[in-house]
């Protein structure tokens, strides 16, 4: 099982590097406070509009921020890979028998793992700010599953793009171009019932929306089928993007 061993060893490398960045840890702790605090205050009154399913906006917003954090955290995952490409780390590893898929899997695992930790912080903060999760602690913890799946999918996608473009500028442009539209074409900040029809139509094929829908259903606790169907969809996306990223290694080998 060299694939599992390789992935685990490489995952440890990524984790150690992250733990050695105090600024990363500080931002991880502060960012949810800004998102939940700022957005929560700014949009506080929108729950007064008929059609919102929760009584406070913070309760509505918390699963949305969990998902948005997962999206952006993972989308930048390819930056580390580009750095490794430029410093020759990837070539050094490709000249060993390491399983190619493990190079991607380790990054995906690392993105998912850090997203899991960040999501816990966001949930705790949501609770502190007065969110009430109908399905209790277990339901709230279930939101980690769609968040981590979405993170895995976008980490793999980001890694694949990194291997194909090999330039930070390109990846930055792509993430900036797609990041916010994907967030706003979902129910992260606005109830699906209140979306314009065309936005709702697009959101049904938007993986970010699948994750938000699953997360929100998990904290509501009254429709577990919705939770698992959306998680299954996300798992399919993880497999597809993981395959794409592994194929990108072949393209890299042909062209480099």
């Amino acid at each position: 099982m060299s694939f599992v061993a390789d992935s685990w060893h490489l995952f440890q490398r990524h984790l150690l590097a992250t733990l050695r960045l105090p600024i990363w840890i500080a931002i991880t702790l502060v960012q949810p406070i800004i998102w939940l605090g700022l957005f929560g205050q700014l949009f506080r009154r929108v729950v007064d509009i008929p059609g919102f399913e929760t009584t406070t906006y913070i309760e509505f917003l918390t699963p949305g921020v969990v998902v948005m954090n997962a999206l952006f955290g993972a989308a930048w995952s390819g930056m580390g890979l580009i750095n490794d490409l430029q410093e020759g780390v990837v070539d050094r590893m490709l000249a060993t028998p390491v399983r190619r898929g493990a190079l991607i899997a380790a990054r995906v695992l690392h993105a998912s793992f850090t997203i899991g930790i960040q999501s816990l912080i966001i949930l705790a903060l949501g609770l502190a700010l007065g969110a009430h999760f109908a399905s209790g602690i277990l339901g709230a913890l279930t939101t980690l599953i769609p968040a981590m799946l979405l993170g895995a999918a976008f980490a793999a996608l980001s890694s694949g793009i990194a291997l194909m473009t090999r330039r930070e500028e390109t990846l930055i442009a792509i993430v900036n171009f797609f990041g916010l539209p994907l967030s706003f074409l979902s129910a992260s900040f606005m109830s699906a019932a209140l979306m314009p029809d065309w936005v709702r139509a697009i959101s049904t094929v938007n993986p970010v929306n699948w994750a938000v829908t699953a997360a929100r259903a998990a904290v509501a606790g009254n429709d577990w089928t919705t939770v698992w169907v959306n998680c299954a969809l996300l798992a399919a996306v993880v497999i597809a993007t993981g395959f794409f990223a592994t194929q990108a290694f072949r393209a890299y080998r042909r062209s480099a």
Partner: protein
Amino acid sequence: MSTPTPPMPALIADQLTKTYRNGVQALAGVSFQVAPGEIFGLLGPNGAGKSTTVRILATLTQPDGGSARIAGHDVMTDPQAVRRTIGYVAQASGVDRWAKGRENLVLQAQLQRVPAEKIDARVDELLAWVNLTEAANRLVNTYSGGMKRRLDIAMGLVHSPSLLFLDEPTTGLDPETRAALWRDLRRLREERGLSVLLTTHYLEEADAMCDRLAIVDHGRVVAEGRPEDLKRTIGGDRVVLETSDVERALPLLRGIPGVTAAEPEDRAITVRVEHAPSVSPTLVATLAQNGVAVTSLTVARTTLDDVYLHHTGHRFDAEAVSGGKRGGRR
């Protein structure tokens, strides 16, 4: 070549060709062999195709044509076996700057399938061998250039490969560190008996370090052999004469036994001789007998630069890129 049961070459490259997508032809048919236990050099200016050759041999790039075998394993059809056999130390070092020296080595050992119970001892031994034991638990980002290079080499050796690739190992190092590295490489061969393929654009490095070498120019091997043999085959030494009458001196010089060539160069004459110490007096005497005065005489032993000039028709210029900067790498 057809001796009974010859030892298997450490490496055979046969007619490797590669053209990058942007149209730059990096290799136009590169062939050479590395014997077990020898330090073999690929010498050529930047852009000659050295790095591309090594990347193909290290299974990182696929050639368009030709084949290569390392310890009997085909680079194209059995890359996993090749990867277990080789150590690869690239020009861009490839160490993780934000990890400690020891962590880099442990991960490399894991990826190279060193049995888990042997990793600690192996890493300790290598750290001591490259004199990094005290710096082992510092982030590599704090290392000097020489320390980083020594770690690079230790990384390439962690699984006891039988063939080590060193791509431009001394580029960017100060002279002192470079000399230390040369010492380390000789020690490597003596103590570990492995084969080394190194690329360099330093003539003196190739001369000092390599048992045998191939001169690469425009994606082709133009000469291969031991440095001494390469120098001998192009006709021994070089004598530069300044005379009162170049026109008369040239045919006289060419008629002397032991002279292989005589060409005017500015106002002087460059004479190729088999052995300068024994022929030089004859040169002067012959010219004097015919009324041509010699105003100066300089003897220069043949260098690889002369070999290079002889085979390529131009002087070696490490920075003169032949055929564009290595295309397609980024």
